């Protein structure tokens, strides 16, 4: 009898307010000693009903709502949504606007990955990395502030173009920053991935094989860390990406280390993309003329997807011919990736849970919507 009692699994609740859940996620764990046997993710603590709200807004009024989805990378949801609306209403986008979109989204990728890499460091006991990474993020955020006046919720991409043209000297400021950035990124690389303690905490934790990544629907750095070369910028090259040279970073082992390192190495590619985009960017209008304030796409639906910092972000809009969308749905990469926690966490020790969750990079605004 005492043996049986001893072998009972212990149910432990983590979250929703917990430093290692990266937001308001909650996980119910079945523990056998220190080993996780079962992890059940409970979401919805940040469900704000954005998809439902969108049905009561005009197409333009939905743009600020998309900012609040993935608040670490607001530009992506802006762009994905606007692409869907442009597809539905057959709106053209001027070339300069496309370049500006690419530039801001790649900057956003760096900013978002810095947050993720930094918190991977914090999860694995290297808090200094977080401070360094956040410093790099802060520089990008300042450039965004010069561009559109907001630090976090930009609403910069609008149907038919972008909201503001780049102010004088902004492109040069971005170029100057991009020249400095690789030094900071290399420093971060050494600080986190060269650190023997952090390597010990990250390597071999939460391994996902290539087949599993494909079968479980992982996208973004989570899939690429497992060796799946899935990148919408390459596979379904949208906007001006076909004219820009960049590499898709993939990992070998599919562990937390590879996922985090993929993110860091992607930042170098983003720097390359931004430099090319700024040199190629033509002069011209930034917003197509004659877009009505009340966009009313013809009856039908449209789906557009882009590669966000977290993976494939898709937006599906249905129009009934009116000025308000009949339905807007977001295929959120954070939701699909974070649900893998119940597959990856079992048979790891409790202290690895935060590392695995951090390596999936959830943003609960986008998970819960």
């Amino acid at each position, binding site marked *: 009898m005492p043996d049986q009692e001893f072998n009972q699994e212990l149910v432990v609740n983590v979250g929703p307010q917990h*430093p290692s859940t990266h937001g308001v996620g909650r996980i119910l764990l079945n523990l056998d000693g220190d080993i996780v046997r079962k992890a059940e993710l409970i979401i919805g*603590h940040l469900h704000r009903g954005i998809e439902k709200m969108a049905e009561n807004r005009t197409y333009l009024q939905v743009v600020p709502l998309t900012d609040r989805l993935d608040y670490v990378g607001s530009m992506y949801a802006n762009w994905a949504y606007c692409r869907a609306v442009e597809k539905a209403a057959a709106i053209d986008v001027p070339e300069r606007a496309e370049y500006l979109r690419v530039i801001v989204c790649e900057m956003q990728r760096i900013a978002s990955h810095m*947050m993720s890499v930094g918190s991977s460091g914090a999860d694995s006991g290297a808090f200094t990395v977080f401070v360094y990474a956040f410093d790099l993020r802060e520089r990008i955020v300042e450039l965004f502030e010069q561009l559109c006046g907001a*630090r976090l*919720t930009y609403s910069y991409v609008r149907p038919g173009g972008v909201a503001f043209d780049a102010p004088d000297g902004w492109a040069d400021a971005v170029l100057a920053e991009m020249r400095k950035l690789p030094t900071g990124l290399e420093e971060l690389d050494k600080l986190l991935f060269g650190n023997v303690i952090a390597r010990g905490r990250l390597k071999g934790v939460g391994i996902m094989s290539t087949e599993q990544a494909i079968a479980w629907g992982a996208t973004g750095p989570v899939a690429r860390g497992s060796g799946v070369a899935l990148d919408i910028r390459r596979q379904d090259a949208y906007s001006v990406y076909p004219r820009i040279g960049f590499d898709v970073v993939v990992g070998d082992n599919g562990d937390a280390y590879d996922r985090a390192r993929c993110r860091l190495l992607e930042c170098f590619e983003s720097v390359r993309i931004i430099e090319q985009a700024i040199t190629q960017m033509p002069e011209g209008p930034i917003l197509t003329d004659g877009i009505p304030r009340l966009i009313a796409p013809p009856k039908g639906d449209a789906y557009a997807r882009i590669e966000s910092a977290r993976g494939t972000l898709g937006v599906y809009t249905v129009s009934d011919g009116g000025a308000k969308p009949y339905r807007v749905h977001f295929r959120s990469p954070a939701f699909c990736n974070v649900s893998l926690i119940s597959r990856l966490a079992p048979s790891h020790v409790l202290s690895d849970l935060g590392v695995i969750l951090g390596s999936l990079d959830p943003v609960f605004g986008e998970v819960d919507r």
Partner: protein
Amino acid sequence: MASLGKTDSASDSALGYSTLESGVGNVILTSADALLGWSRGQSLWAFPMGTACCAMELIAASFSKFDFDRLGVFPRQGPRHTDVMIVAGTITEKMKPVVIRLYEQMAEPKWVIAMGNCAISGGIFYYDTYSVVRGVDQFLPVDVYIAGCPPRPESLQDGIVQLRNLVRAESVSPGVRYRRRTEIPLRTAPAPTTPAPAEPASAAPASAPSKDPA
């Protein structure tokens, strides 16, 4: 006590002391209230109740460029270590019982800062949504409101400075000076069957089930 005399003149009135310059040295006269208020306000450890976008600015405020530490604010993840709860982000009906519970776990004296429009009133989510609580002041006693969506880190720090002045105005003896209520407003309300008239009907039933004093 000599360091007290070195504080700049602007904070003298808040501290409530007067210095007597004499040939020998500085003598400081103060009251227990002023000393207590001064020492409490000097180092407000924060409990970052970051749920949504505003949490990013909360993190930014505590890191190198803005540096919360210089105001004595040190974010701690355990509610029992902290003095002020900074509610940064949207609070949904599902999250509300958790926030109440964490507030109750904080040790007295405690204060609440509502950071961002969502925490003040629901902000952008005020209309057309079914899941958002329209402001934390529906269930927590809020001391300082900081507007913005999100507020800049500087505004958050200014909010801390304002809270510091409030803390200093508090008194240990009852009824003498400003004294704030710390009990949770909704807890004193009647049972969920009769929702209070001032709030949306959806807010009342969800608030009560969490923990009725059993």
